């Protein structure tokens, strides 16, 4: 560490021409940055991370309760604790509370640092954070009181609340674009393509989802298919990939393997992903052409997924040693593998022959956790562990970060494998024409294992909260960060 490294179009690069630069880019920050700016950026990053951590703990506590209810359906079956009200609270708060807020916090930090500038507006960042939180709180209360917009997955919040979320997105998009516009160099680092793209696309998603004119009967089904996949793949995916593109070169002090491949993945993701939403409604009365288009582009998604994954893995190639000594990199490595495996699995699931067995079964729940957890959440954690210590100068203990990593990894393995196997059993029961109740009975052991995995995952989040505390309020230190110099010195 600490040796000058040749960077070409690296995250800290301030020009098209390759230049010698210290990997601790902020030390060489341009005149636009002052210590006050650094502190403002750090406090925004910390606040977003802390908020996200709260929602992570809350939403996964709810998830754990839901998992328990599969074995004990009469446990806490009262009105405000009934399964059907808590289930959308779990999904919406992990999506719009935890993952969204965490990724926007990371995006701000990456935008400012990679452009060598300060945030365009700290006030807008705070306003966005407030709006995200107001939406999540109001949404949680509304769902628990039984006010929803139908059981429309991931857009159950009543529309006024989703407008608050849209306002948060608009504020975020404005602030990110204006920040990147202040860069001194001509080039825009790839991470910012993904984050700005993600925010802009999600504004469209939020608008399309809320306008009422074309959402009657089957028309609404078409929008549901579009929404439930675009809200994942055009929001969490690009923002998490933006974290990869910044954090991997940062940790390894080497440029991304291929900038061009990253650009190709960006445009192909944009061209292919929006088209595959209808694969959630194969064999439904939606037009057959729409379903077939969705299948075709589910296969086409292999281009950006494999291209992007190869890019990250090739950047890491030959640095296994660094990985062993760097938990942030381990988190990111798992995130990349989660992206590769989860997305490829999604392609396989989209075939009609596979859907005939897996659709409606718990296999789908396993898939959504492999992607949202194995990919997105690990990307978030890797990004936070790699970058938050740079902003605050404080690191979590090695034991804490190791506990988080291994409990989350083992927990999610148990979770995904039990539901994948169980979901297959469930689907085969249906294909075999057994009485329906047999599929319920056969799932029981897998539900138990899912609960075991879920418990480990939840406990890992509690440790994560402790680690966030150490990275923000704890003693200054640098135990586990791969990027901080070995003694004392901090970046911000």
């Amino acid at each position, binding site marked *: 560490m600490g040796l000058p490294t040749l960077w070409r179009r690296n995250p800290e690069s301030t020009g098209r021409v390759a230049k010698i630069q210290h990997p601790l880019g902020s030390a060489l920050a341009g005149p636009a940055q002052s210590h006050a700016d650094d502190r403002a950026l750090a406090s925004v990053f910390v606040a977003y991370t802390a908020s996200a951590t709260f929602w992570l703990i809350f939403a996964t506590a709810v998830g754990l309760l839901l998992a328990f209810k599969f074995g004990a359906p009469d446990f806490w079956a009262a009105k405000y604790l009934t399964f059907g009200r808590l289930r959308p609270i779990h999904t919406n708060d992990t999506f719009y509370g935890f993952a969204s807020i965490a990724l926007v916090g990371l995006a701000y930090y990456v935008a400012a640092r990679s452009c060598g500038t300060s945030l365009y507006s700290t006030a807008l960042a705070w306003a966005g954070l407030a709006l995200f939180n107001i939406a999540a709180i109001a949404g949680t209360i509304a769902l628990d009181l039984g006010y929803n917009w139908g059981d429309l997955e991931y857009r159950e919040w009543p529309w006024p609340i989703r407008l608050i979320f849209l306002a948060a997105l608009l504020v975020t998009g404005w602030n990110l674009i204006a920040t990147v516009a202040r860069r001194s160099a001509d080039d*825009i680092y790839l991470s910012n393509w993904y984050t700005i793209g993600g925010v802009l696309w999600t504004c469209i998603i939020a608008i399309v989802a809320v306008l009422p004119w074309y959402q009657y009967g089957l028309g609404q089904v078409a929008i549901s298919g579009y929404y439930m996949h675009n809200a994942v793949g055009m929001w969490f995916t690009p923002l998490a990939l933006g974290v990869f593109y910044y954090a991997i070169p940062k940790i390894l002090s080497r440029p991304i393997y291929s900038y061009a491949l990253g650009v190709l993945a960006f445009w192909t993701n944009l061209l292919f992903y929006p088209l595959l939403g209808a694969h959630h409604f194969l064999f439904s009365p939606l037009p057959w052409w729409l379903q077939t288009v969705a299948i075709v582009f589910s296969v086409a998604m292999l281009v950006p997924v494999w291209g992007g994954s190869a890019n990250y893995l090739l950047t890491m190639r030959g640095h296994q040693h660094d990985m062993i000594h760097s938990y942030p990199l381990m988190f990111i490595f798992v995130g990349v593998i989660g992206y590769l495996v989860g997305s490829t699995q999604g392609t396989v699931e989209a075939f009609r022959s596979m859907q005939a067995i897996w659709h409606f079964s718990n296999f789908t729940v396993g898939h959504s956790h492999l992607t949202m957890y194995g990919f997105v959440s690990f990307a978030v954690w890797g990004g936070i562990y790699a970058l938050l210590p740079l902003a605050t100068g404080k690191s979590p203990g090695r034991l804490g970060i190791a506990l988080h990593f291994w409990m989350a990894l083992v927990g999610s393995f148990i979770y995904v494998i039990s539901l994948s196997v169980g979901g297959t059993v469930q689907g085969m029961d249906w294909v075999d*024409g057994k009485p329906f109740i047999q599929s*319920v009975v056969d799932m029981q052991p897998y539900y138990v294992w899912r609960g075991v995995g879920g418990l480990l995952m939840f406990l890992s989040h509690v440790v994560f909260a402790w680690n966030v505390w150490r990275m923000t309020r704890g003693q200054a230190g640098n135990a586990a960060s791969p990027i901080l110099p070995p003694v004392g010195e901090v970046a911000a």
Partner: protein
Amino acid sequence: MNKLLAIAGGALGIYIVIVLLVAVIPAIELSQAPAGPGVTALTPLQDEGRQVYAANGCGYCHTQQVRPLDEDKPFGRPSAPGDFAFQTPELLGSERTGPDLTNVGNSKPSDVWQYIHLYDPRAVEPESIMPNFKFLFDVVPVVPPGETAVPVPEAFAPKNGKVIPTLQAKALVSYLLSLKQSPIPGFSTAVAMGTATAATPPAATPAPAPTGYAYDAAKGQSLFTANCAACHQASGQGIPGAFPSLIGNTAVDDADPTLHIQTVLHGAHGVVVGGVKYNSAMPPFSGQLSDTDIADIVNFERSAWGNHAKPVNAADVAAIRAKGN
């Protein structure tokens, strides 16, 4: 700035075009899909029930879409675009932790069954993992005039007082009972009580020579589990006051199988068994079960739980089927 404009503007513009093409424009067209024949709007009470259904997230475990796959045949004919004309918000669902409900009004037409099942699903289905919805019911010391107590089996009933449904429960059950596919020529709307074994089309089985008491006992039991046990229970004892016991039942355990076969074929309503009048409706099975299937069920019932009545064969069923209702 130009580069930023190109990337952000280009990405946004391309995305808007794609979204219009694959989401908004198809949705505009699909929103205007006309109602299918026989598909009608819900009554105000049913509509309120639909809101109770959505508010409590029933759609997370129950789908309302039947796919053109063999495994979906127990739930009815494949769903058609016209089925969804009055379904906003849509409740097609994405998971079958519990069975599809597209035709639950046909397969479980008894409101009494629906009430007991909502109050405590395990009272009628011991293996169910559905949460109870006791919060949709009141427990009162005296049943007010105009109300009817839900005959919850003793083991599941509150120790003191009677269970009566709230308005929300009434609306929900009214909605559930309204869930019936309308017929489309060429498709059978017949549904089983939740099994795929009923996928066999009504067969005009040629009458085999009477062979006495030989039948497929395993299949008979499986068909019974899937089609009959929800009300009559695996024990055959039914639910006191709600669904009659089949043990020593005068229709079942009788030398003459005519009434027994007739009841399975055509359903029943308001029958008196053992001096007790049962108001619950039993659905007809003539539409979805073949003569052989019905003979297997009937023979299972006539020989299980200590019953030992004269066996029947598919020809007997065919003969009674031919007479009509």
